[in-house]
């Protein structure tokens, strides 16, 4: 039963207190439900702006990788390249423009390194026999050739056309995805973008 020994002022204060508490809980409940809804909406909007086939595009975080080079000497990981710009190139021995751009990249590799930008070329799931024969044929490369033997990195980046080069900045974000053969002007532009 209600306490009757309170004076009107006390009762009013108690009622006000109760009302405040009620308002607080009402606000909490409404905020929580609306917040949950907003999170779901944002997630779907985010998904809609991303590519349906899982292709990595400009603005996405570059997926991590850990790949061994052609000679089985060293493992290269995404983390190792963080803090510096990275041009991540995907290529195959069966791709003509890939073959054409490789000497140009090789000639510029020193300059790139000096400018603080790394370059790595991921081969898309070919056999070491084939790749080493091909590399011998073009006279070797200064930059690392990474072997994606089970195509998992190729899958993670959603590669469809070759060659393709991802310009990744210091924070590990993809700045641009460039499909096609790289020429001198494009390469210099890429180095600039990766360094921004």
């Amino acid at each position: 039963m209600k306490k009757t020994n309170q004076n009107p002022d006390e009762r009013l204060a108690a009622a006000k207190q109760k009302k405040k508490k009620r308002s607080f809980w009402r606000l909490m409940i409404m905020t929580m439900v609306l917040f949950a809804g907003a999170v779901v909406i944002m997630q779907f909007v985010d998904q809609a702006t991303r590519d349906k086939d899982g292709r990595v595009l400009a603005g996405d975080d570059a997926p991590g990788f850990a790949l061994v080079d052609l000679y089985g000497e060293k493992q290269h990981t995404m983390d190792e390249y963080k803090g510096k710009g990275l041009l991540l190139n995907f290529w195959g021995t069966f791709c003509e423009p890939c073959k054409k751009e490789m000497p140009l990249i090789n000639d510029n590799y020193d300059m790139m390194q000096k400018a603080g930008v790394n370059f790595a070329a991921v081969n898309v799931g070919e056999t070491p026999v084939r790749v080493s024969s091909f590399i011998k044929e073009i006279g070797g490369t200064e930059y690392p050739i990474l072997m994606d033997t089970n195509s998992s990195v190729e899958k993670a980046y959603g590669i469809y056309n070759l060659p393709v080069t991802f310009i990744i900045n210091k924070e590990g974000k993809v700045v641009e995805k460039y499909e096609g053969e790289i020429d001198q002007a494009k390469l210099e532009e890429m180095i600039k973008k990766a360094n921004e």
Partner: protein
Amino acid sequence: MMQQEYKQLDMRYEEAELRSKRKNQSWIDRTWTFFSSVKVGLWLIGLIIIASGVGTIFPQEMYIPQAIPPEEFYGKEYGTAGDMYYALGFHNLFESWWYIGLITLLLLSIIIVSIDRFFPLYRALKKQPVIQSDRFMGGQRFGAEATGTVNQIDAIEPLLKKKGYKIRRQDGALLAEKQRFGRWGPYINHIGLVLFFGGAMLRIVPGMHEDELLWIREGETLPIEATDNEYYLENNAFNIEFYDPAKEDEKFSEALKRAGGSVPKNYDTQMTLYEKVGMSDDFKPKLEKVKSGETAVNQPFEFGNYQVFQEQYAADPEFKTMSFNIENQKTGKVVDTIKVDLRNPQETYPLKDGYEVELKDFLPDFVVKDGKPTTNSSRPVNPAFVFTIKSPEHPKGERSLIGIKLNVGGDENQYKMGFAGTELSNISGVRIKKDLTLPFLFAGGMIFMFGLLLGMYWPHRRVWLKETNGQINIAGFTNKNALGLQKEVNLALTEVGLPQLEDRQKLREEGESK
């Protein structure tokens, strides 16, 4: 005697003061009041139903042909209506911001309505008095009045008790009540709904829901991306069985023939699951076998929270290995045989008696471009090999290019590579699924059904009897199935000599229509 007419009471919430009906001041309370209206909830449900209906007029985005971009498809196929459909987001309705927004508002409405009604109702039912006022009893839908004594009320008590009523007495008056829990049905129902929608929303939480299609060749071990590459799956064998038109019933054999004779009867994959336990020195994952099993259509292979379903298979098997005999062309004697794994060829193959074969190049999809041998892709469709055979007679090696029906530069050599067979491997397409939201959907659905049953089949029934100055006042309440209450109570009333319950609402309606 003039019977006093009372206005019928709305008993849905036992006349309890609903919180939202109080005077409001702040915007918080005003918003709360808005959503506490059942009318608003019904409007939201109506809008959701209409939107969902419109969403089925044209196909959703995931069902349209992939070749045409959706922004062009709807306009081209359905004209202006299609363009509008796309512009308003109906093409991807169930993930559109305003559809999810409507669902969210409905959820909010359900929660607020429940809180607003449940607590006052609970309190009112918890402390109901046995003796009710004449206004209250007269305002019930069922009731009757007659002269009588308290003895009659005493006599009816055991009769009602037998029917399962709980009896409370006070100063001769009686309150019989049963199945009060039936009143909680709608609220339990709402809890189920909130759980169900909440579970559906949980899908977006990373790790709650995974879905991946993995193409895996026989003999191949691949990381499962859906498990963050923590688990690897090996395809030990893929089996496929076709219907044989000759052996089947005549009814089907013609249809089978028409289909080209290659209708699969069953296909399944024998697989082994490995867990990655670390990396080895040569940067290969160290794998530990977890279990093996098989997956057939509709019979998943399960591990942890994951299920692996057999979904597809590649129509054409792929070359897996090729074997060659190293022959002395003059004597025709076979020196040795090598087997080349096309996915992982070795660079050198040591043979007996100091012979050795070096694989200089491997072209999985052989073509000649600009007069030079090269490969068209990385798939072993038309494999060709550049071999060097080192023999005691030719320590530097004899070179030749070998492929399918192809032998370049090998004719003058003393030793040649002779084709000695091939192994094929099938490619199995398995779908890896994980859905931790299912228990929520299941529990939500069950609770919803439970609440529905409670509300539908267990009506809350009450009977009040009170005696004042030789007059007996009877009132009855039920929230469902009026006839059931009358049948149950009238029997007892007649037995103790009291009049039967009248349906005042019916009487009033009949009076109005006359």
